[in-house]
């Protein structure tokens, strides 16, 4: 224990942390920024100002903790998946149970924070985009909780494949607006939400669902999701008396992964951080969502990051069986972490994710989301190669009820 603390301390003052301090103004190295139409700039500045004000506000923090505890159900357990670990025959695997959050995914951590902020800012209307529908559901719930009017933009392809979430959003009083432009998925839902926002900037608050988009969203959404990592760090120290060897999370826009990684970035010399992207039908097939792995640097939906694009910078459609990973962009902080080599980004195929979906269900009686199943599939490959003294933590970002009966 003592030794570990020393190690921790040493790591905390390591070179990487200094490097990391270049942060905070909306840029992660050269990534990030506010590549948006002029009409939105003032709204983003207003949001930035208010966010940084309330972030330090004692009353706001108390209110947020109250709702995270009593409404969301935090802290979520860190659960030792004994049967899964035995079956894979290697490292000890822990699951950070974000699937046990209210409504079944990590998304609610962010929406409660943002809708609370929207209320403080005196905004009357809430809008959001959604892919898998988990963010839409979480926004609809927070809007109901704080009695605000809510519209959710959702691609028509996603409306079909995540129909149970459409039902849930409507039940909670949200209006679901079908987006049938472009790929009819998350990317186009974001476009439409932004276009709508440009026309109602004065009284409307846009709740972005991941660490993407223009500043301050990548920073703010990360901050609201960091609770995952903070709890995890404390829990693993309590249980194992040391930090894990690996942390694995799936990456769509990148919110659940940055949420769990962030408090460990300064330990990244010995805690290996692995983000798992959607390999879809294979990289060669071009039907995938592995933006960090196989995209290029570029400007997309308000930020400079990595993006799937063609030779002339036209955005390409992503593909994944998991609607929440079916996105050609990724958060700018991940682009930075990739470039610095602090986090490693891998991918798994649809078919591997589907296998992992079944394996966890059978072994542990936990049905994971298709998105989460990507992180699990990677762990199935990783764990057997490691000894029993090694510890892997997987961010179990959501439960899979929404995916049942959808292929």
């Amino acid at each position: 224990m003592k030794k570990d603390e020393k190690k921790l301390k040493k790591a905390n003052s390591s070179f990487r942390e200094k490097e990391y301090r270049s942060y905070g103004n909306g840029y992660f190295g050269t990534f990030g920024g506010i590549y948006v139409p002029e009409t939105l700039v003032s709204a983003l500045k207003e949001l930035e100002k208010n966010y940084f004000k309330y972030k330090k506000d004692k009353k706001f923090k108390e209110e947020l903790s109250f709702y995270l505890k009593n409404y969301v159900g935090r802290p979520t357990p860190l659960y030792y998946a004994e049967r899964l670990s035995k079956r894979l025959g290697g490292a000890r695997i822990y699951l950070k149970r974000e699937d046990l959050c209210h409504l079944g995914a990590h998304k609610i951590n962010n929406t409660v924070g943002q809708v609370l902020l929207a209320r403080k800012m005196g905004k009357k209307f809430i809008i959001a985009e959604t892919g898998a529908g988990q963010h839409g559901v979480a926004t609809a719930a927070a809007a109901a909780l704080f009695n605000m009017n809510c519209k959710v933009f959702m691609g028509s392809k996603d409306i079909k494949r995540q129909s149970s979430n459409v039902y849930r959003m409507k039940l909670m009083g949200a209006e679901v607006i079908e987006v049938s432009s472009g790929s009819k998925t998350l990317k186009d839902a974001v476009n439409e939400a932004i276009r709508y926002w440009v026309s109602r900037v004065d009284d409307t608050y846009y709740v972005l669902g991941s660490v993407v988009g223009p500043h301050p969203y990548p920073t703010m959404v990360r901050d609201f999701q960091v609770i995952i990592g903070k709890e995890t760090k404390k829990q693993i120290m309590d249980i194992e008396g040391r930090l894990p060897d690996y942390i694995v999370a799936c990456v769509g826009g990148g919110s659940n992964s940055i949420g769990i990684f962030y408090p460990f970035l300064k330990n990244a010399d010995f805690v290996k951080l692995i983000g798992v992207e959607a390999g879809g039908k294979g990289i060669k097939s071009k039907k995938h969502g592995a933006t960090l792995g196989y995209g290029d640097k570029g400007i997309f939906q308000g930020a400079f990051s990595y993006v799937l694009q063609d030779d002339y910078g036209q955005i390409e459609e992503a593909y994944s069986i998991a609607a929440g990973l079916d996105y050609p962009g990724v958060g700018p902080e991940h682009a930075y972490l990739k470039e610095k080599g602090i986090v490693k980004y891998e991918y798994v195929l649809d078919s591997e994710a589907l296998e992992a979906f079944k394996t966890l269900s059978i072994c542990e009686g936990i049905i994971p989301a298709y998105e989460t199943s990507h992180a699990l599939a990677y762990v199935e490959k990783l764990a057997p190669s490691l000894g029993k003294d090694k510890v892997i933590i997987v961010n179990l970002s959501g439960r899979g009820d929404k995916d049942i009966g959808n292929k």
Partner: protein
Amino acid sequence: MYDSKGSPIDRVFKKLRKNNQKAFIPFITCGFPSLDGFFSLFETLDKNGADIIEVGIPFSDPLADGPVIQTTSKIALENGINTDIVFNSIIEIRKSSNTPIAIMTYFNTIYHYGTGRFLKKAKEAGVNGLIVPDLPLEEFTSYRSYFNRVNIDNIMFASLTSSKERLSAIAAQGRGFVYCVSLKGVTGIRNSINPEVIDFLKNLKGITTLPLALGFGISNREQINQIKSYCDGIIVGSKILTLILEADSFKQGIKEVENFTSSVSDILKVYKIPG
């Protein structure tokens, strides 16, 4: 960097101002409805009173655009249009027209091509201005040096939501003219003018000597009559593209564009003693 006469875009406004006339600045998407169709459309506008022509390089995810320009961009991309084809088309146009051309596109198109390379090629092709709706002041700063190397006007946006300090900075950084956004929203056809626009333009006049061109949502003579005395030019995009989209035939569409263009330029070119 420019000679005393200014850039070709500057000269257009200088000449018009002398006669108390206003610029007509249409927008069309390169490659819509086809590459040949684009050339005919350009020629029609050029011959019927356009002072500056905005040419769009289509982008897959045009955030600042409404349904019409989304549609024309999609059609152009389906027609196989890319950045090189746009430059080549402008080279072709330059064989017979000197009307200033401003390219409008989203920043990823430029960044991916290589910002320096893009500007150099644009200059060589005969482009005079560049309009990038998702490159606000904050981000433009990092790329300013590229613009300074070529004589291409960096045309910046001013919005109803821009603060006074921002408007001053936009005026200081921008060249050619200030693209004044007439509404809070995306491009597309609207029937009236937001009454806030008049004060906004008056305010801007006090801040900058750059010409003010008003765009987004402008589609009829009534709107133009209402605001023309407060600005130096009018930008019309979606309306013109809609005339083509909705026409029974391309020929018919061109006829409609011709009528619309000449009727609009008539209003803008009427010499009227102010007051």
